[in-house]
């Protein structure tokens, strides 16, 4: 409990004001300090006045700020307001403080004296940190929203152009269909086959879009998945395509990872069918390798296909983005965008390297189960 000295209200105010007061001489030594600050920091007056300098009780970052900005400002403008710093309590705890300071020239000695008023802002600091965290979170959300908007714009564009193409073909073909004339049945069959082809193309695109958006589902089970089995399963599913293109898929030893089985299967299917589709003149050869890196595995899928220019390596993962040189080959521009989403949902990264005409290599990382680390 503070004791009042009724004869010296000014001294009482100095010592027991609800803020810290401290003065420092031109050599940085503390020359006076009030009781409030001593109590906050748990020092007695003799101990504090015996300290080599005021900066002694400042934390390191504050010490640098003090020397590099606060002192220059004080020398230049004689007062400084609301500088946020931290002080050491005697027990080693940090105390966040807000400092106002002024510099007074002692006319008798010609030396300067510095006065500081100090507020304990422990609570305010907590709010400030929360505010900062909320701001960062809001910025991140805004960034995601912007990405989503761009995706939607692209989506609308693709719907209006890419789906309209086969739709126009269908309506044109149906216009010239004449089912009343039996002599035209062969021609009609050809037309219907073309119509069927166009609807297939549209179906493929709609399926692709659907699976892309289904990736956002949150309740899928994450569990240990044997990549070796999964990769072999993908090879079996693509068997007829592999046979047709006279291709080969080699798979090295792959580990068990932590993930969503259906999505990882789709990842391999996408990468393999791309490698088969964007093939060069040589028979497709695909090699899958794995490299363990601490708690992650890095998978490599190397092919000997068409490849792409090194500066297109980010573009290949773009949503509904297709490389100009591939425009003649069928595709929705969703395959690799899907792959990227799958890998990112697993917390990993995906990237590709390539040289045009020399094949490409896709890399991605997946988390290992905790027990394997």
């Amino acid at each position, binding site marked *: 409990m503070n004791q009042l000295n009724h004869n010296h209200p000014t001294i009482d105010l100095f010592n027991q004001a609800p803020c810290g007061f401290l003065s420092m001489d031109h050599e940085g030594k503390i020359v006076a300090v009030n009781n409030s600050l001593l109590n906050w920091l748990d020092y007695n007056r003799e101990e504090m006045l015996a300290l080599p300098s005021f900066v002694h009780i400042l934390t390191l970052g504050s010490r640098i700020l003090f020397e590099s900005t606060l002192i220059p400002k004080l020398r230049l403008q004689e007062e400084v307001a609301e500088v946020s710093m931290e002080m050491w309590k005697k027990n080693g705890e940090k105390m966040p403080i807000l400092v106002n300071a002024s510099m007074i020239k002692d006319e008798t000695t010609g030396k300067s004296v510095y006065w500081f008023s100090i507020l304990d802002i422990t609570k305010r600091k907590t709010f400030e940190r929360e505010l900062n965290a909320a*701001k960062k979170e809001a910025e991140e959300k805004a960034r995601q929203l912007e990405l989503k908007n761009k995706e939607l714009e692209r989506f609308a564009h693709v719907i209006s152009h890419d789906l309209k193409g086969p739709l126009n073909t269908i309506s044109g073909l149906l216009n010239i269909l004449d089912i009343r004339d039996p002599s035209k049945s062969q021609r009609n069959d050809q037309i219907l086959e073309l119509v069927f082809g166009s609807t297939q193309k549209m179906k493929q695109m709609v399926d692709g879009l659907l699976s892309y958006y289904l990736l956002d589902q949150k309740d899928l089970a994450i569990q240990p998945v044997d990549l070796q089995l999964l990769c072999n399963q993908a090879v079996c599913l693509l068997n007829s395509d592999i046979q047709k293109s006279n291709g080969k898929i080699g798979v090295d030893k792959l580990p068990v990872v932590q993930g969503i089985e259906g999505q990882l299967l789709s990842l391999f299917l996408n990468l393999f069918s791309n490698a088969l589709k964007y093939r060069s003149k040589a028979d497709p050869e695909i090699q899958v390798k794995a490299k363990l890196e601490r708690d992650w595995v890095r998978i490599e899928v190397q092919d000997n296909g068409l490849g792409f220019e090194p500066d297109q390596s980010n573009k290949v993962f773009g949503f509904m983005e297709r490389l100009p040189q591939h425009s003649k080959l069928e595709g929705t521009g969703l395959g690799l965008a899907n792959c990227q989403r799958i890998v990112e949902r697993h917390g990993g990264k995906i990237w590709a390297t390539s040289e045009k005409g020399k094949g490409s290599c896709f890399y991605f990382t997946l988390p290992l189960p905790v027990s394997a680390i």
Partner: protein
Amino acid sequence: MQPAIQKKYNIKYQDSGKPVLVFAHGYGCDQSMWRFVAPAFEEKYDVLLFDYVGSGNSDIKEYNPSKYNTLYAYAEDVLEIITYLNKSEVIFVGHSVSAIIGILAAKMQPQFFQNLVLVSPSPYFINDGAYKGGFSKEDIEEIITTVEDNFIGWTSFVTPVIVGNKERMEFASELEKSFCSMDPVAARQFAKITFSSDHREDLAGIDVPCLIIQCQFDQLAPIEVGDFMHEKLTSSQLVVIEEWGHCPHLTSPGKVIASIDQFLQAHQ
């Protein structure tokens, strides 16, 4: 001097044909930190004052974080200023990190520098074996946090929102733009490279005559660092000022003026 360059670095300079004395401020401040020293040289020299991009009243639009990620970028800026002066050489006075920026600039284009005056220099703030830089590696993160608290903390970003309207915001920023103002992004990055870059190796092979001004009791650049600089810079002279702190040009401008003047007279 081209107006664009003048605006970029907020250059204060009048060419009257005298030798040129360039004053470069240290971290956390701006050209105003030379106000007790620079005027003393105006009679004999054409004094040039400037703010680094991101500090003081420089043109913040020129601040590109991917460019300013090493001190070399700042050294190139110093060279750009000197190139536009169209003078054969200058005397460069740099405080703290600017002393090192001056060394790097002199390493790239030694012919531009007649002399270097290094006030409270430190080539590396972190302790490394026998080298006593003053700080540990872990300390650097804390430094960055404190910088963030002061330049990016509530004081700089919450207030304008509460104050609200744009006019008043401009008024507020006018008030804040006193001495030693810094752009928050630049302040963070400049702090990071200032306190974590190691330029000890760059001291070798500097032939430009240098004056090192060291305070006896400096918490940021301890006296051992001054000795290290003096040892590595073979054509250097070391002056130790009996003074506390890191900014002798602010706390003892008279002594700093006398040391620089004496050194320059001897090297005329």
